[in-house]
């Protein structure tokens, strides 16, 4: 046993020595680490998984790693500046007669990173590739296009089966252009991993491992002198905590993270740490309009008036997601579309007294337990499905439940997994749900169209595309179609005003808070970041192709 004691002592000594060394190294390491940050930008965007090193611009899981960085689109359309267009691969565009055709002039002098020049043929090829393989058509442009052809040495014309002006955003901004020479030789483009992507964009992948992707500047990029940031590191984070920590210690400078108590966690750590969360879409209570009690508009209006949206925003979302309003217009992003007279008319959106009186008008009275009941004995008590993983949504629902209880409506949260929730929502197997649309565009039309267009709904038991609440109104449908048929901003605004009226009167959904883009930035080593006063692009590292614009504006200090 003497040997045991000896062994034990040696082990302890070694460990202690190692610990002391590590202590010193640890303190030195973090200090030395931040100094070496010069012209390399590190992104902190937790993806929950390791990198697969696939970069196909047509695969939904890989687009954020390649579109904008390696591949580019015809134009850049800024959703935060009402759709301002910046020409990229297309130097110009024009609408044809009746808005049924769209012609792009392709920029000359652009080369792919392997040296081959970009031509109009590549553009036409790319679009026809999406037609041939619908699985690649992520934005779904062929639902409105009838043909895409190269009509000149440097022009491509797209024909529509019916005018679909809002689709300009998807066509010009969301379709990455690939090289015909490379992709025509690919046997199965749907499963093609594209591990060594060749595009016209400012960066190349060099190299990719499962833990980290390094991007280096593309020497033959068509914008001279760009990009100024020569190297990007994009580590794979599997947990939020690690990603947040890397931001807080300055190891990463561009964050796309949800950080709780961001003031004390992040901005307090350095005067160079900033954040900005531009709102994008509404997070709403989605009523199942086929439910007999919820089909009464007054009940839905009452729910809208009963919720203290500011409180939900400050308590459930730590104030990160601003309160929404019943018009459905996300402010301040789309404030210019808001119908100010309507907003003034509906007055204070939080009005429990008005909620109660609306319920009484609908024939409900408070029973002895404090629940609104009608003459037939039916109680306003519902289950609301929610995604259990999103702890902020769970917290939101707790506040909402308290607010509704105060006017006599009981909601019982049912926190489901992502998959269960999706299934219930799509098939209409719920009473109330809490959700937001997954698409965002340069005007409120994109989100509201998804919610309100009868073409996107389905009966209970079948999958609804985006209109989960099963709202159907021919009048609204006509409005939405009219919006799609015009390029006149005046007409568009007038239609948008009418749609806001629909939102307030019909209450098909009840917006509560506004979802935001997550964005943190460190001004110590880089300048040129997008800010609230200079929203030249969507600032999140996962927004494509907006991230390209950010990278083209950034420069090392």
């Amino acid at each position, binding site marked *: 046993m003497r040997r045991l004691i000896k062994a034990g002592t040696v082990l302890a000594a070694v460990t202690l020595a190692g610990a002391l060394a590590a202590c010193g190294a640890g303190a030195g390491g973090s200090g030395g680490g931040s100094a070496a940050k010069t012209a390399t930008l590190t992104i902190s965007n937790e993806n929950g998984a390791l990198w697969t090193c696939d970069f196909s611009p047509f695969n939904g899981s890989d687009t954020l790693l390649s579109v904008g960085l390696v591949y580019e689109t015809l134009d850049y359309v800024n959703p935060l500046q009402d759709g301002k267009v910046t020409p990229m691969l297309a130097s110009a565009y024009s609408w044809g007669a009746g808005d049924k055709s769209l012609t792009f002039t392709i920029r000359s002098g652009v080369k792919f990173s392997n040296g081959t020049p970009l031509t109009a043929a590549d553009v036409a090829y790319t679009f026809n590739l999406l037609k041939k393989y619908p699985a690649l058509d992520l934005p779904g442009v062929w639902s409105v296009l009838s043909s895409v052809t190269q009509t000149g040495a440097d022009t491509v014309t797209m024909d529509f089966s019916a005018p679909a002006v809002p689709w300009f955003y998807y066509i010009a901004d969301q379709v990455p252009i690939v090289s015909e020479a490379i992709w025509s030789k690919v046997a199965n483009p749907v499963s093609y991993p594209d591990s060594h992507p060749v595009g016209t964009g400012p960066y190349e992948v060099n190299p990719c491992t499962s833990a980290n992707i390094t991007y280096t500047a593309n020497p033959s990029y068509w914008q001279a002198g760009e990009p100024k940031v020569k190297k990007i590191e994009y580590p794979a984070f599997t947990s939020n*905590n690690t990603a*947040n920590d890397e931001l*807080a210690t300055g190891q990463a400078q561009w964050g796309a993270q949800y*950080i*709780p*108590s961001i003031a*004390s*966690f992040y901005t307090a750590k350095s005067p160079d740490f900033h954040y900005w969360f531009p709102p994008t879409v509404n997070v709403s209570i989605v009523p199942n309009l086929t439910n007999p009690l919820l089909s009464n508009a007054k009940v839905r209006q009452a729910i809208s008036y009963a919720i203290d949206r500011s*409180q939900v925003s*400050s*308590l*459930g979302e*730590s104030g990160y997601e601003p309160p929404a309003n019943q018009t459905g217009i996300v402010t301040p992003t789309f404030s210019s579309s808001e119908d100010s007279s309507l907003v003034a008319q509906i007055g204070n959106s939080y009005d429990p007294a008005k909620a109660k009186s609306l319920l009484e008008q609908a024939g409900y009275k408070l029973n002895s337990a404090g629940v609104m009941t009608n003459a037939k004995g039916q109680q306003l008590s519902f289950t609301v499905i929610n995604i*259990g993983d999103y*702890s902020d949504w*769970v*917290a939101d629902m*707790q*506040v909402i439940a*308290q607010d509704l209880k105060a006017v006599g409506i009981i909601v019982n*949260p049912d*926190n*489901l*997994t992502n998959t*269960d929730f999706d299934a219930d929502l799509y098939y209409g197997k719920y009473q109330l749900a809490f959700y937001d649309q997954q698409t965002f565009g340069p005007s409120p039309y994109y989100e509201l169209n998804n919610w309100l267009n009868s073409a996107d709904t389905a009966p209970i038991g079948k999958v609804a595309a985006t209109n989960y609440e099963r709202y159907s109104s021919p009048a609204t449908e006509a409005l939405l179609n009219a919006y799609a048929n015009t390029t006149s901003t005046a007409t568009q605004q007038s239609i948008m005003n009418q749609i806001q009226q629909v939102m307030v009167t019909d209450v098909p959904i009840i917006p509560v808070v506004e979802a935001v883009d997550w964005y943190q930035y460190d001004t110590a080593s880089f300048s040129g970041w997008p800010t609230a006063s200079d929203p030249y692009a969507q600032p999140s590292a996962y927004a494509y192709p907006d991230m390209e614009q950010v990278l083209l504006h950034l420069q090392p200090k």
Partner: protein
Amino acid sequence: MALQATVESRRLPSSQALNRIGRAVRSNRKATAGTILLGIFILVALFPGVIAHDSPTLDAYRPHLGLSSAHLLGTTAYGQDMWAQLVWGTRNVLEIAFVVGLAATAIAVLVGIAAAYLGGLWDGSLSVVTDVLLVIPLFPLLIVIAGYAHGGGTLVLIVVITATSWSYTARQLRAQALTLRSRDFLEAARVRGERKIYIIVVEVIPTMTSLIVASFLTNALYAVLFASSLQFIGLGDPNTVSWGTMLYWAQNNAALQTGQAMWALAPGACIAALGAAFALLNYAFDEIGNPALRPVRRRSLKRQPIQPSPVEQGERHAA
């Protein structure tokens, strides 16, 4: 002679055993400390409204408040009073501890003693089941089951933990039951022709009272630790008020890194305190059972230079 011994030892019913336990608790310092601590928690669970005047669930206050006389532990990031949550959460924790403790002990008693007394194939198969369950790492098993069940509320936690954690105590009970089998008074009962059930219920179980109580304490302790761990990682129902769920929300809001350390430390300290209560009582029962382990009171050796050492005195007890 044997008959006389039988008559005397037949008077070893539960009441006398409990009496013995009562005396032991009072005289042993650890047992007293443990009982007082446990008593405090039980009182808090029974009368939470008396101790905490605020609602634990309402987001009624300003968030991120520090300690003050209005909010003894401050408020959470959602504006809830932490002290109220801590106090009301005691109910959920004790509920789980006692229900799982009792249920798991009941299963352990059943399995352990049955295995010892039925012998043969019964003993073989029950022992194998017990040993297998003993060896399979419990926490990963709990995680997997709770994962398939998508979490779920307190009831799911209780059922799942009870179903998996009885094996350790079952083994101990079986071991002791086996040693008792050869004792005189049981031999006498068998000779008298009593049924096995009678022997088990009336003779064996009362003799094993202290071990059964110790098993209950062990099971309750692990129920508290496992349940709060599962709640902490999000496999409980995050809307229940409990210490484990407080930790879950604290972790989700990076409480430690954002100056809200109390949100994580307070419930953890409570779990530790309750666990310590069970552990102290358990340890005390260990010492009651094996006096050699009892703490040695130092005696000055000057007055009686030639004395047997305490170790040797203890050794004389060996049964």
